C-alpha cells in the first residue's frame, strides 16, 4: 500500500483544552483513485496535509501508523520529507492562488518543479512548463507562463498548481478540491490527465471534493468524513446507495439541472453522528 493511515488524531490547543479536529481516521490507498468527501471542517485537508507533514506547528498529531511507501512519516526528518514533497508526492492545495509564490511567474514555478528531479537545462524546463500548461488546457501557454499569480483567473491558478504538481511524475498525488474553479469542459480534461497518471504510471490519487457526482463517476473508492471521523467507506460507483444517514442527507441536498426545486433540502445533523453511535 502506498499510503497507510491508522488511527490518526490531530488536535489543536484551545482555551478550553485541546480540541480534536481529526479523531481516529484510518485509511489505505494503493494504485487507485480514492475520493474523500464530507462536511466542511471535518478534517479532510488536515488528514491530507499530515501525510506530507505540512500541518500548522501548533497541531498535535498521533497515529498508530502514518506511512508513505513504507516510510514512517511521524519519525521522518525534515530532510527526508523534502525528498518526498513535491517530488514523490504532490499536494494540490485548496487555495491555489494563495499557495503559489506571488513573486515568481507561473512558468518559473512549473519549470522549477520540473527540474526538481531531472537534470535538464533551464530552456528545456521552460519548454516542459509550456507543454504542461497546454496539457491543463491553458489557451495561451506563453502568456500565462509569464504571468504572476495575481494576473491569473481562479481556474488558471488552479491549473498552474496542478501542472506544478504533475511535473515531477509523482507516485502519490493529493488533490484538495482541484477542479472547484474549473468549468466542466476543462474539468473533464484535467480528470482525464489524472486518470492517465493512475492507469499508466500506477500513481495513487487522493481526491478531496465536495462534488459528489464527480467523485462517484471518477473515483474507485470513497470515504465519507464527518466531524473528524470516517463515517462510511464505499465503492464510488455505489455512492447513491450509501447507508450512513449523513451521506444520504448530503445526496438529498444536491441541486440538479434535471429536477428543479423551489427550496433545497437541508441536513438535520444528528448528535449521534459525532461519536459514531449510529
Amino acid at each position: 500500500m502506498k499510503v497507510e493511515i491508522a488511527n490518526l488524531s490531530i488536535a489543536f490547543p484551545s482555551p478550553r483544552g485541546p480540541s480534536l479536529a481529526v479523531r481516529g481516521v484510518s485509511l489505505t490507498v494503493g494504485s487507485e483513485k480514492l475520493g474523500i468527501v464530507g462536511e466542511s471542517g471535518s478534517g479532510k485537508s488536515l488528514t491530507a496535509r499530515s501525510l506530507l507533514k505540512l500541518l500548522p506547528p501548533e497541531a498535535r498529531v498521533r497515529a498508530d501508523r502514518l506511512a508513505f511507501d513504507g516510510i514512517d512519516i511521524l519519525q521522518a526528518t525534515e530532510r527526508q520529507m523534502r525528498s518526498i514533497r513535491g517530488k514523490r508526492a504532490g499536494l494540490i492545495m485548496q487555495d491555489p492562488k494563495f499557495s503559489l509564490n506571488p513573486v515568481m511567474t507561473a512558468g518559473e514555478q512549473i519549470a522549477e518543479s520540473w527540474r526538481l528531479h531531472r537534470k535538464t537545462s533551464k530552456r528545456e524546463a521552460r519548454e516542459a512548463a509550456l507543454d504542461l500548461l497546454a496539457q491543463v488546457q491553458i489557451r495561451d501557454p506563453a502568456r500565462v507562463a509569464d504571468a504572476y499569480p495575481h494576473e491569473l483567473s481562479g481556474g488558471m491558478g488552479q491549473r498552474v498548481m496542478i501542472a506544478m504538481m504533475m511535473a515531477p511524475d509523482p507516485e502519490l498525488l493529493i488533490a484538495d478540491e482541484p477542479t472547484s474553479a474549473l468549468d466542466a469542459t476543462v474539468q473533464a480534461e484535467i480528470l482525464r490527465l489524472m486518470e492517465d497518471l493512475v492507469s499508466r504510471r500506477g500513481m495513487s490519487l487522493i481526491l478531496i471534493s465536495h462534488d459528489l457526482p464527480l467523485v462517484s463517476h471518477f473515483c474507485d473508492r470513497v470515504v465519507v468524513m464527518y466531524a473528524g471521523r470516517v463515517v462510511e467507506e464505499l465503492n464510488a460507483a455505489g455512492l447513491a446507495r450509501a447507508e450512513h444517514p449523513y451521506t444520504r442527507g448530503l445526496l438529498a441536498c444536491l441541486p440538479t439541472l434535471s429536477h428543479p426545486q423551489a427550496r433545497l433540502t437541508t441536513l438535520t445533523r444528528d448528535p449521534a453522528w459525532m461519536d459514531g453511535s449510529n
Partner: protein
Amino acid sequence: MDGRFQLIVVDNLVIRFGRVEAVSGVSFAVARGTAWGIVGESGSGKSTVLRALAGLNENWSGRMLLDGEELPRRRTRAFFRRVQMVFQDPYGSLHPRQTIDRALAEPLVAQGIGGADAAIPRALDEVALPQAVRFRYPHQLSGGQRQRVAIARALITSPEVLLLDEPTSALDVSVQAEVLNLLSDLQRERNLTYIMVSHNLAVVAHLCPMIAVMQGGRVVETLSAEALRAGRTTHPHTAELRALSTELEEP
C-alpha cells in the same frame, strides 16, 4: 439599453490588462430583486466583470449604471453601502492577521453602522458557522469556513446588491444548500439583487432565472434557467457545459 427599469446595467464593457483584452464588449441588465447568473469558460472574464462592477478596477470603457445613474470610475462610500462583493478566493480577501471578529466588524465600522456585538454572532449563525470561530484567524479555519466568513462579511451591512463570485464552490453540499436557501430568503425579505458567477450549472439555475454564458471575454449566449434545464441552448459552449453536467447527474 434602457437603464430606467433596471437596477444594474452593464453596457459594452471592455477591460484590458496590457495587451490582453479580458472583457470585449459585455452587456447585460439586471432588474431589482432578481438574480443574474454568469457561467462559462475558465479565464473568460467573469471575475473581471464582477470586479469592475464592484469598483475594484478603474481601467474599463463602456458604461455601468446603478439605479439609472452612471457609475463613476472612483466609487463613493455610498456605493459600497449598497453593493458588496464575495470574492472567488476568500483567503485573499481576508487579512491574515485579522481575527474573524475584526474582519466582520470592519465593514460596519467603515460605514458607521453600530451594533457589531449583536450583528457578528447573528452573521456567523446565518452562514452556519460555530461561534467558536469568532476569535480565530483565517488560517485556523477550513476552506469552506473561510468562504462562509466572506459571505457573512458581505451580508453584515445589509447591502442591496450582492456580487457573488463562486460563493459556494468550497462548501459541502449541505452548507451550500443552507447558503442558497439563505440567499433566496434574503431576496424575498429585502428584495436583494444578485449577480452570481459559478461553474456549477445546477447552482446557477437554482438561484438565477436568467443566465449569461461567457467565452473568450464575450457573452456568447443569454438564456433562461428553464431553457438551460430543457436543453434549449443556441451556442455550442453552452450545450457542451450542459451535456457534461447532466452526464454527471446520471447515477
